[in-house]
Structures are given as structure tokens and as C-alpha cells.
């Protein structure tokens, strides 16, 4: 009888961790930050159709980095769960906190399975509050091991998210107009880029969307590239 193949649990977790971390680190970052009308999401993305930032529900958006094949099904299943919950109870019962917990459980379950490859993803689930409700904006990050963290004012996921977060801690200002908020997010993304090798982040390389509280029931809106080019080309305010 062949002797069983023995690996210590510690070693397995360590190797899983390394694998997942590498996968996520390859992913370009997504920055989300608060602006005067809600939350704006900015990511580097050369593809105009394979989105990193998407709509989940009335006030909830989703962003994923890492392996697209792995985070896109999570997005779809999140939409399914949100629609079923909203239909069963009411639309106001679908919250980012609930969805973030679901994602945490799914990703964590995969992480703990002995014979499964961990998911190489990092997710962001964000929700804008209702203005008259005393509701704040919510930002939740879910790591490849299923850990949830909540952020205030801004959030970053992806390879160099730590550095960008530190940059934003110094430079973030609340309630910026949309154009300035986008420019701030782009500068945050550029702070970790090798400008000479990779060139500047122009509208063609950016994916931008907002959760805008002034909109109707569905707060999510993608900012098309033409509009983005225009917004980025308006001269920055003198204070910058």
C-alpha cells in the first residue's frame, strides 16, 4: 500500500496564499472614491468590453481585479442573488453589507477547500446611501481568502493597492466635483505606474463609472470614453 502523501496544513495555506497573491498582483488596480454626488470608480482597462466595474443593483456596484474568468461569474451570481432577494422581500433590503458577506463566504469556502485552487481575485462592493436617510456610502473589499474590510471615503483593490491607498490618504479630499474626482483617481493610479515605460493614463486606457445619487432608481452609470476624454481635457481648477 502506498504511503499517503503528507503535506502540512501550514505549507498548503502558504502555497495557496502565494498563488492567489501573485494572481491578484498581476491585476491592475481599481480606485473608488467619494465625490459630490456619490462614488466614482476608475480603473485602467484597455478593453472596452471586458469590464472590471459593473452594476449589481439599484445602489450597488461591483469591481473585480485578478483573474477575469473567476471574478466575472462572481459578479453574475451576485446579480442573481440580489435580484432574488429584492424580489422576495423588497429592493431596500438588498445591501452591500449583505452582498459583501456572501462573497466573503463563497471565496472563503473555496479558500478552505483542501483540493481547490484559491480564487485569484479581489473584489470591491460599493453602495451609495440615500441622501435623506442618514445612510452613508459603503465600501467593502473582499480578499482572495474571503476576508472583508470596509473603507471610508475611498477604496483600492489590485496589485499595488496598498501604495495607492497611502497616496490617497495624503491627497484625498471629500465632495469633489466629478471631473476633479476622476482626475484625482487617475493621479492615484499613476502614482504607482512607471510613466516612462508605460506612458500616461489616457481616456483610451481607462474604465470609469459612477454611482450617482441624483439619478433615478438605478444609480449606476458608465462614463463613455468620449465623455471621459472631454472631462479629462477640461482645465483643472486653479487650486490643483
Amino acid at each position: 500500500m502506498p504511503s499517503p502523501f503528507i503535506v502540512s496544513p501550514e505549507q498548503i495555506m502558504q502555497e495557496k496564499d502565494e498563488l492567489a497573491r501573485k494572481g491578484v498582483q498581476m491585476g491592475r488596480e481599481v480606485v473608488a472614491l467619494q465625490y459630490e454626488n456619490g462614488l466614482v470608480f476608475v480603473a485602467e482597462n484597455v478593453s472596452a468590453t471586458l469590464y472590471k466595474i459593473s452594476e449589481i443593483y439599484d445602489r450597488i456596484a461591483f469591481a473585480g481585479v485578478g483573474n477575469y474568468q473567476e471574478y466575472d461569474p462572481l459578479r453574475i451570481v451576485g446579480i442573481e442573488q440580489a435580484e432574488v432577494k429584492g424580489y422576495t422581500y423588497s429592493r431596500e433590503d438588498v445591501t452591500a453589507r449583505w452582498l459583501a458577506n456572501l462573497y466573503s463566504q463563497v471565496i472563503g469556502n473555496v479558500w478552505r477547500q483542501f483540493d481547490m485552487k484559491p480564487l485569484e481575485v479581489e473584489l470591491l462592493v460599493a453602495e451609495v446611501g440615500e441622501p435623506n436617510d442618514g445612510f452613508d456610502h459603503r465600501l467593502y473589499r473582499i480578499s482572495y481568502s474571503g476576508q472583508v474590510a470596509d473603507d471610508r471615503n475611498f477604496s483600492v483593490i489590485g496589485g499595488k493597492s496598498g501604495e495607492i491607498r497611502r497616496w490617497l490618504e495624503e491627497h484625498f479630499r471629500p465632495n469633489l466635483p466629478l471631473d476633479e474626482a476622476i482626475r484625482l483617481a487617475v493621479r492615484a493610479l499613476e502614482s504607482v505606474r512607471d510613466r516612462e515605460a508605460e506612458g500616461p493614463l489616457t481616456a483610451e486606457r481607462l474604465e470609469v463609472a459612477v454611482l450617482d445619487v441624483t439619478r433615478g432608481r438605478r444609480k449606476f452609470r458608465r462614463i463613455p470614453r468620449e465623455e471621459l476624454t472631454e472631462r479629462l481635457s477640461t482645465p483643472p481648477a486653479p487650486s490643483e
Partner: protein
Amino acid sequence: MKEEWDRLPQHDFLALLREKYTHLDPVRAFQVVAERSERRGPALPHGTTILAVRFDGGVLIGGDRQATTYTEIADRNIEKVFEMDEYSAIAIAGVAGPAIQMAQLLRTQFEYYEKVEGTPLSLEGKANYLAHVLRQNLPAALQGLVVVPIFAGYDPRRRRGRIFKYDVAGGRYEETDYYATGSGGKDARSTLKKRYHAGLSEEEAIRCAVEALLDASDEDVATGGFDWVRGIFPLVKVITQEGARDVPEERLGEIAEGFLNAWRADFAARRNATRSED
């Protein structure tokens, strides 16, 4: 990944019964009854009059205490108004068995949700969930097992009382001021219609409800009124920002006595007037 989702804890208690504890699934149980029962339906006790009144700062919900089978009193002491949680209650008319069971199911569901999710279901969500449950009861309802609820509560998000009425097909309709249903519902509604006014206070709402219940029991033989002999009075709850509480029986009795004394005096005067004319 599909299996991962299936393993997640659910917030839907009814779905849990349907999938895991099928012997407890009320929809299934009543469908079996419905298929076997005769066209007219078995002789089952019916709950009779229930009502709800919205007032400034909250909502009142109540009902009489009698269950009636055809022309027979099945129970003098039945409760038709159930607190669902701090901020909502349900009153139930129709066939008593499934109605009470439905109230229990809802209470369990709302509490289950609150514990699993760590946050209570919105009033809107509770009202909608009840509509789903009723819709699933439709086959049984068509066979005679009709359940007619009123759902009322204080909506902390909108800061006001709200009243929802339902039809057997699961149609959900919000009433802005008042509603009454059950066998004496129309009589109670007539009273509420005449007594209701803008800016109704909690105290006025309680008076309106007592008068409506008295009128319902006066006009409808199936509805029980104030049973002074046995000391059984209708059940009335008020729900405000501070939560739900019962209106004390003594208070209800006082109000009812006031109405009865006034009416007694009035009828005596009428009799005297008729006599003196003769």
C-alpha cells in the same frame, strides 16, 4: 462555484422548509387538503372582523375574539392579532387554522432573517413576503381555505405607520388611512369611514377602532363583541416609534362602556318619545 452558493446560509425560512424540511412545508400540506376537500370546503372555523387604523405617529391593529363555523361559535377566545416583531403585527381573518399557522410562519421568517442577516427586514420587505406566502396558498384558497390578512407596522425608514391589505391571489395594496375586513369588515369600515379624519391621534384611533368593532358585532352575527359575562374583549395593538404594545383591556372596556351607555340612553329616549306620541 454553484455548489458554493448552494451551501450558503439562507435568509428565506419558507425556502428552507420547502427544500430541507418538506414535512413542515405549509404550502404542501394545504395543497393536499385542498385536493381532497369537497368543492364547498370542509366546515372550518373562520376568523371574523379585523381592522387597522393609521394615526399620527403610528398605526393601530385589532380584531374581535370569535371564531365561527357556519352559524356556530367555534371559539370565543381566539387571537387574530399577532405581533411579528417590534414594529409590525398581522391580523388575520378567514379560515383560522391556516391563518394562524401563516402568522407563525411569518413571525419565524422575520426573526430568522433578522438573526441571519444581522439587520431586520424592512417593513416593505415584510409586506411583500406576506404577498408571496399568500400567492403560494392560492390553490388552497380556491378550495375554500381562504386567509385574509391585514399587515400593519411602523416604518422606521419612512417614519410613519403603514397598512397593507391583501387578496387571496397575493395582491398587495397599501391603505393610507384605515381598513377592515372579515365577515364584519364592511360594517367596521363604514364606521371608520365616518369617524376617520386628518391628524387622528392615537387616542382617537383607539376610540374609532372600539366603535367600529362594536358596530361590526352589532350587525354581523359571526363577529364577537365585548363579552362582559366572560370578560373577553377585542384585541387592539398600537405600534409607534417606541414599538408595539397592547391597549389594556380595561381601557377598551371603558371606551366600549361609554358608547354603550350613550346608545342605551338614546334608545330609551327614543322609546319614550314613541310612547308619548301614542
